[in-house]
């Protein structure tokens, strides 16, 4: 489970002064469900996720992952969490197998556990053909599958996906989406951040619309559609952030 309570992040910039990247955001994501964070680039999604992944310290508010406070137990939170972001790249000179093993070791898995998990993930993500090739020879899809495998090597309870289909072709994107859905079906707590409306509609049980660092609306896509009086998800989004902008 993920719980965010009044989560706030303020950056102090020398020239631009105080920047409130995340402003009083609260939400809950339960096991066996996918919480979608929907927002344009720069809305504050990545900052929220970085705080949940303990990469950034909240300026105010609190958050817990699998019952552990992100500020009090950062290492234990990371051990229970899988974080996959567009900004999390791979080591080009390692093979996919070595990459998975590296993160397995950092998650304190034994050699036997690493071998077993590598085999399992390689089968699920169709990676056997390139498992022993160096990452710098990979296509974007191969890289993304390797990234997912290294994120999930320790079989975390909570998984955060930050724009995981960015730059992928349709087939690779479908594999990833199927995999995310599978994670939910196995009872994992999943946060899925994106600006692609169709993905949100297909995948997410609860959607949070983020704009200007604030959570403007929350609910299932049916609820949001009803609230905004439209059946198109893109229109839901535009009306939600439009109403805020007008206000």
């Amino acid at each position, binding site marked *: 489970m993920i719980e965010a309570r009044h989560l706030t992040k303020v950056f102090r910039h020398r020239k631009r002064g105080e920047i409130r990247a995340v402003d009083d955001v609260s939400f809950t994501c339960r096991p066996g469900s996918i919480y979608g964070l929907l927002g344009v680039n720069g809305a504050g999604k990545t900052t929220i996720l*970085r705080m949940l*992944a303990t*990469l*950034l*310290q909240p300026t105010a508010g609190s958050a817990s992952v699998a019952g552990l406070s992100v500020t009090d137990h950062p*290492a*234990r939170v*990371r*051990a229970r*969490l899988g*974080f996959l*972001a567009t*900004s*999390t*790249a*791979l*080591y*080009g*000179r*390692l093979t996919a197998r*070595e990459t998975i093993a*590296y*993160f397995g*070791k*950092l*998650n*304190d898995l034994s050699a036997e556990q690493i071998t077993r998990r590598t085999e399992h993930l390689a089968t699920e993500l169709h990676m056997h053909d390139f498992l022993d090739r160096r990452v710098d020879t990979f296509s974007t899809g191969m890289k993304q599958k390797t*990234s997912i495998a*290294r*994120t999930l090597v320790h079989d975390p309870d909570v998984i955060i996906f930050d724009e995981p289909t960015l730059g992928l072709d349709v087939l690779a994107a479908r594999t990833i989406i199927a995999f995310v859905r599978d994670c939910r079906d196995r009872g994992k707590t999943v946060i899925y951040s994106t600006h692609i409306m169709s993905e949100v509609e297909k995948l997410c049980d609860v959607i949070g619309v983020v704009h200007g660092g604030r959570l403007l609306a929350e609910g299932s896509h049916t609820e949001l559609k009803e609230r905004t009086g439209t059946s198109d998800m893109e229109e839901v989004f535009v009306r939600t952030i439009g109403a805020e902008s007008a206000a």
Partner: protein
Amino acid sequence: MNLRHATTVYLKELKDSLRDRRTLVSMFVIPTLLMPVIFVAFGTVTTKLVRKVRTETPTVMLLGGEDSPKVRAALAAQPRLKIVPSADDFRTRISEKKLRAAVRIPDDFDRSLHEGRPATVTIYTYEGELRSGFAAGEIDRFFRDYREKLIQARLEERGVPPSLLKPFELTRQNVAPPEKVGGNLIGGIIPCVIILLAFSGAMYPAMDLAAGEKERGTMETLLCSPASHTEIVLGKFLMVLTASLATVVLSALSTVVTFGLGASLFAREAMASVARGAGGAAVRHALPSLHPGGFLLSLTMVLPVAILFSSVLFTISLFAKSYKEAQSYLSPLVIVVILPAMLATLPGVDLNATLACIPVLNVALLSKELVSGIFNWPYITLIFLSTSVYAAASLTWAVKMFNRESVLFRS
């Protein structure tokens, strides 16, 4: 702190670096080839140049002395000089290196000598130019011999023994062991080179493992793992240190091999010179030698310096957003490092308690003493301790910086 995490990070960085051509070049190829290339290339070029200059007959212009046929004839008979006719533009020709030197014989030179009146011969030369220097040397030698013979003849004429002018002989003999002579000759250069190598060996991995990782986006991937920031810094720092030490050790080995081979070549040449009766012993004694224990100890002293360099370079590189930015921060630091190392080579700059606390300079000064076989233990301890304190402080700084969001996620 979980040392297993730090070891995992270190081993991964090592594997990654050993697969990187740029790291391999800076870590293995350059340090191994640097010393032999410097010695062989510099030695070969210098030897060839000097040999060529020695075999060349320099062109020398004879000015004046038309009324002194004796000295002109003696000069013209010199096989090591090619006398050219007098011309007014001799200064320009020397400056343009078309003429090696010129010599002006004063008017009435022969007669002045005959009558015992003082006379001055002037040699015109291009100061600092090797060929001109050789030509001037030949002219100088000729006139000294000429003067010597004249003195001998005058003394004989007056029935005075030559020992009257030379009541005693003066000789100089070296009592310092060869390693101390060697230490003085090259003791300053070796620490300079070692310090520079320790720095350059750490520079590339420091940039790659901090700024490079941030730029490629792999740093965030690593930060998502349960490894703490301290463990990550330690693993990465150990890799930078390994590269720095590998550079120094490989360079030291190649220096030892180069010196060993050079020594045997020198010895062979010296033996050949002895067989020809041409001062072989002098050649052998001219060969600088180093105190092996001191050389090893000075390498040990490099350890805290390498720790200091590795952590400082890693921390500064951490501030940079990209590899290129890190390069612009770190490259000028070479001067900051090489200046104190060079200061140590200056005459009169000797180790004292204050200098023993100045990083880099202290190790450079100590190494100079160590390779000469001087073991000043209180200073060795003080320098090791002070450099270790600086190294520990900079490593703490690295960890502190690694925990700052503004540094890790600078945009």
